[in-house]
Every structure is written in C-alpha cells, then in structure tokens.
C-alpha cells in the first residue's frame, strides 16, 4: 500500500502531479521510496537537493568529512556558515529546510566493508557520489550483493560520466572497469581540480536517473554510459554489456563478499590526505626549513606550471610530474634533492620514478607546499 499525500503535499508536489508520467500515484511511490547517497560533496549536493525536493520519503547521507572553504566552489548544499561543521549535518539542515516532510538519516562515518551492507540494505536505490576508487568499487559490490540499482556518476576537470549499474538487468561497474587504474595515473579532483558547475550538471543527471528508476518511467541508463565534456559541450553515449567474466556479477563470479578495497585499488579511500612516500622517504616542512639554512638542497617542484602562480618556493626547479620521466637528464642523481607538489601525493609518485631511475638521495616533502604554507611561511596561500 502506497502512502497517501496530505493536502500540503498535494500542493507542494503539484507540478509533479500534473505530469501524467508521475501523477498522484508516482508521487506516492516517491514518498514510499528511499535513496542512499554516498558522499555529500560535489555530486551529493545537487543529488540530495533535488531528491529531497522531489519528495523521496527517506534519504540517507554517508560522509565523515567536515565542510571546508575549498568545497564551496561546487558543493552548493553547504555554506560559509557551516564551514567546520559535519557535512552530513550541514546537508541535513539544508534539506529539511527545503522539505521538512521527508526523513533524512545521516551516517557520519567512512563507508567501509564493515558497515556498508548494514547501512545500504534498507534503501531502494544507491547513488554513488564518492570521490575515490576504493569507495566506488565498494559501492558497486554492495549494490550487486544486495540486488539494488547503483546510479553512478563521476567527474574530473571538465569530464563527467553517468550510468545506472544494475546487475539484475545489465552490467555493473566492474563489467566496465574490472580493475582500478594503477595508483597515481588518474589524479583526484583535489589534485587535478574540477570546474565548479560540472558536478551540478552531472549530479542533476544522476538525480534524474534515480527518479526514473524509482518511478519506473523512461529509459534509464542501464547498459549505457553517458560521457559529458563541458568544454566541447558534448554528450556521447556508449553501449555497455555485461562482462561474462565479471568477478562479482558474472556467471562464474568468484568475489562473493566485500573485500579490502584500499588494498585492491592501492590507494586510500579519501582524496585529501597529505601525501607521503612512506617511512624513511619523507621530510617534514619543519625539517626542510632547518636543512635549507645549512645545506645546499635541490628543490624539485613537480606541479603543473599554472600552479606556480598560486604559490612557489624560491630556487625550485619545476618539472611537471607527467614530464619527469622524459626530462631526467636535467637532474643530477648525485644531488641531494627534495621533491614536492601541492600536498605530497604527486611528489611521492615522482620519488618512486626517480628511485627506479637510480636517484637515491631524494626525499618527499610531506604535505607538500600547502604544509609549508601552514607551518613555515604563513604568507603563502593555501589551495
């Protein structure tokens, strides 16, 4: 039995009730439905706002982060007044202001193999708006094991992807991406940046797909992947097929339970921690500040040239990480060298590359130039 709509609800949703494809029964379906949104960031902002406005009866929000000033260029559900507050609480307040008649459940915890099945099992649909590969594989496997649709979207700079991975009716995320890319090949948005409006475009499409699936109308992107590029303003579609060798949804699937996704992907399940090259390979900014007083150290900045306009260290040589392998001849392996980037992740990969090329006297600046700006030279801006 679908719930009835109150007099207030009929007025609130009147523009839905006027569409024959939704109507009163469709709106009652939405009131009776539930959606779990993984991530309350760039994608989670428009997704949760529109699903709340649409009258989804129960929305779950999973995120353990706090609102940061650098989020507000795109994470429009949060505001300057909620900087420093938990994202799930900031979002809940905004959503209940938009629509007090729905239920918002918050999960202020990392989404992991330990809690994901418990959290997701009572929701009708899962929306993947996370910012890292381990959580994307986890979200997929949870959806496959629970037999639920996974409305997928991801973004990078000007590119967006949207699909509905629903193993009962089509391919899953692993059918397309059986393995994650090697750590470091694909920069995160924290490293590579993202156009602020991009998650608005892509998240709105993601919310549209969720509503179509919940209402049972139209043609959801099952077996199709949408590729969007904001610079070209291009929308391309490709066909996705179920992979007969898929390890989670194929006929001979051998992954029957959740695994260690950080180990599988070789990266942590968050995209903003200070990068480290591991014990013995790092130097802290305070150590570096001492060392440069007495020693001659070569500083190697592996950021992109446009980042040098934001902040720079004097006398540093700039070779962007992508060019490092081809420009090794510009460096001397006899030099003591400190390699750095924005926060220490790219430089950690640069250190690996240098080490494999025989450079033995290189240290990675832990936390990058941002750590230097926080702890040593507070006149430098953070970004």
């Amino acid at each position: 039995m679908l719930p009835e709509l109150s007099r207030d609800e009929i007025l609130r949703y009147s523009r839905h009730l006027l569409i024959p494809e939704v109507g009163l029964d469709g709106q009652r379906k939405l009131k009776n439905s539930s959606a779990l949104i993984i991530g309350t960031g760039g994608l989670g902002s428009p997704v949760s706002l529109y699903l709340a406005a649409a009258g989804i009866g129960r929305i779950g929000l999973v995120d353990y982060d706090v609102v940061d000033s650098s989020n507000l260029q795109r994470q429009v559900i949060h505001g300057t007044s909620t900087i420093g507050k938990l994202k799930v609480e900031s979002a809940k307040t905004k959503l209940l202001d938009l629509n007090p008649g729905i239920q918002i459940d918050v999960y202020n915890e990392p989404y992991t193999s330990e809690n994901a099945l418990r959290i997701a099992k009572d929701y009708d649909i899962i929306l993947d708006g996370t910012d890292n590969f381990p959580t994307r594989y986890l979200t997929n496997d949870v959806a496959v094991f629970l037999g639920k649709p996974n409305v997928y979207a991801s973004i990078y700079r000007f590119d967006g992807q949207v699909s509905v991975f629903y193993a009962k009716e089509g391919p899953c995320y692993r059918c397309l991406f059986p393995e994650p890319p090697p750590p470091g090949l694909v920069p995160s948005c924290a490293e590579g940046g993202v156009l602020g409006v991009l998650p608005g475009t892509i998240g709105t499409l993601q919310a549209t797909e969720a509503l179509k699936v919940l209402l049972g109308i139209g043609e959801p992107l099952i077996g199709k992947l949408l590729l969007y590029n904001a610079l070209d303003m291009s929308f391309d579609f490709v066909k996705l097929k179920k992979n007969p060798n898929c390890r989670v949804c194929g006929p001979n699937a051998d992954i029957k339970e959740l695994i260690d996704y950080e180990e599988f992907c070789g990266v942590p399940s968050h995209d903003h921690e200070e990068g480290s090259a591991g014990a013995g390979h790092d130097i802290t900014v305070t150590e570096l500040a001492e060392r440069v007083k007495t020693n001659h150290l070569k500083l190697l900045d592996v950021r992109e040239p446009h980042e040098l306009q934001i902040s720079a260290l004097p006398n540093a040589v700039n070779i962007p990480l992508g060019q490092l392998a081809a420009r090794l001849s510009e460096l001397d392996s006899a030099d003591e060298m400190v390699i750095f980037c924005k926060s220490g992740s790219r430089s950690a990969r640069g250190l690996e590359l240098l080490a494999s090329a025989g450079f033995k006297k290189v240290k990675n600046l832990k936390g990058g130039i941002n750590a230097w700006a926080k702890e040593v030279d507070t006149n430098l801006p953070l970004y």
Partner: protein
Amino acid sequence: MPVLRIPTPLRAYTNGQSNINVAGANISEALTDLTAQYPTIKPHLFNEGGELRPFVNLFVGENNIKDLQGVSTPIKDEDKLVLIPSIAGG
C-alpha cells in the same frame, strides 16, 4: 584517418591534444601509430607484455572493442575511437 579521442587524464602524454588522427586498418595498428606519435603514453595503455591494460576501455563508435574483436577489430577512416577513462571524482 580514424580519430582517437584522448580523455583528459591522458592528455598530459599527448601534449594536451584531445583528438588525434591515427593510421591503421585495425585497433592494434592505430594504437601502434598513437604510441609512435606519443611514446610516453605507451606504459599507460599497455602492460610489459604488450597487452592492453585491463582498465583501458577503447570504444569504436559506441561499441567496446572487448565486445568486438579486441585489438584485431577492423576500423575505417570515418570511425571515431574513444578511450574511456576511469575517473573517480565526486
């Protein structure tokens, strides 16, 4: 000549180029031409044994070459080839 669309994360290895003309009668030849033009992209597409890496998804038009004849899939001059990247931002 078929045009290969390079996703943003790999453009660091193609001098920022997004669409590259590649010569060849099949996917294998087209990729050989690509890596001859831009050698530093090779390790991102192929493993040490010279096989396409599993996370590399290459489409001819709207079809994945894995659903066609893999790297032997024939291509025509007017074909659009698209490399689909794994991206994870949200």
